[in-house]
C-alpha cells in the first residue's frame, strides 16, 4: 500500500474527531474525540516515518502516546471533580468562564 492511503485515512480520522468535538456535549465523549485526533496524528507520524525509512517518527509517536495518557488522567480527574460538586456534566451548561 502506498503511503498516501495512510495519510488520507489519518486526515479522515482527524476530521471525524474534530467533528465529534463540535457535535457532542458530554465531557467524557469530548475527551474520547481528543483521543481520536491524537491517534490520527500518531498514524500520520508513523506513516511518514515509514516513508523516509527512519525510526525517529516512531519515537515521536511514543511521546505523543505519553502526552495522551497524561491528558486523559487530568481530564478524567476534572470530570470526577465536576461530578463530585454535583455540577451538570454538559459543556454547554458549564459556561461561567465565557465572556
Amino acid at each position: 500500500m502506498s503511503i498516501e492511503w495512510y495519510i488520507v485515512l489519518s486526515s479522515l480520522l482527524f476530521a471525524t474527531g474534530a467533528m465529534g468535538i463540535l457535535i457532542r456535549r458530554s465531557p467524557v465523549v469530548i475527551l474520547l474525540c481528543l483521543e481520536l485526533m491524537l491517534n490520527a496524528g500518531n498514524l500520520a507520524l508513523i506513516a511518514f516515518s515509514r516513508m523516509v525509512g527512519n525510526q525517529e517518527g516512531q519515537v515521536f509517536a511514543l511521546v505523543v502516546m505519553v502526552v495522551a495518557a497524561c491528558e486523559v488522567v487530568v481530564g478524567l480527574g476534572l470530570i470526577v471533580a465536576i461530578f463530585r460538586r454535583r455540577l451538570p456534566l454538559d459543556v454547554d451548561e458549564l459556561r461561567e468562564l465565557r465572556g
Partner: protein
Amino acid sequence: MEEVLFFLGAIGALGGAVGVIAMRNPLYSVLALIVHLFSLAVLFLLLSSAFLAAAQVVVYAGAVMVLYVFVVAYVGGDQESAWEPIPGQRLLAPLLGIALFVELAIAVLGSSLLTLGTEGPEVRPGFGDPAAIGELLLERFLVAFEASSILLLLAAVGAVVLAGRRRAVEGVAGSSSEHSAPKARSGEVPATPTGDPA
C-alpha cells in the same frame, strides 16, 4: 494480502471513530474507541512498527480504556439533552468537519513530497522493534524521555489533587450548587449540602 489487511484496518478504524461520535451512551463510545485502537494497531503493524502496535494495545486499549470505563461507570452514562444553545449546531458541525477533511486532502495532494505515492524504501528486518526504539529513546532522545517521565509524574499528582476527597470544599460546593445547577437530571440524587454520601 497487505491490501486486504489495510482495508480491514481502515474500515475498523473509521467505523470505530464514527461509533465514538454517534453513540448516545458514553459506555458504547468507549467500546467503539477500543475497536478503533485495535484497528490502528493493525495499521501500525503494516507500517512495520511492531513496538508501537504492542504499546497501543497494552497501554491504550488495556490501561487507558479501563480508566475510561471506570469513570463512565462512576459518573453514569446519561443521555445528552436535546437543547442546543447554538442554533443549527448539529448541521453546521458535519459541514465544518468535511471542510477540514477537504482542506487536509488538498494539503496532502498539493505537497511536493515525491515519495508519498510509493511504499517507502526497503527496511531491514529489525525496523521498529523494541530494541531499535529503546536504543533511539535512550541515546538520541534521552531528554524527551526524561521530560515525558516527569510529565507522567505530574499528571499522576494532578489527578490525585483534582479528584481527591476534600470534605470542607465539598460542603461549600454542595450548598452553592443548588442555584448554579437549576436543571437537576432525572435519576440523580438531589443535591444535599453534606457532600457525598460515602
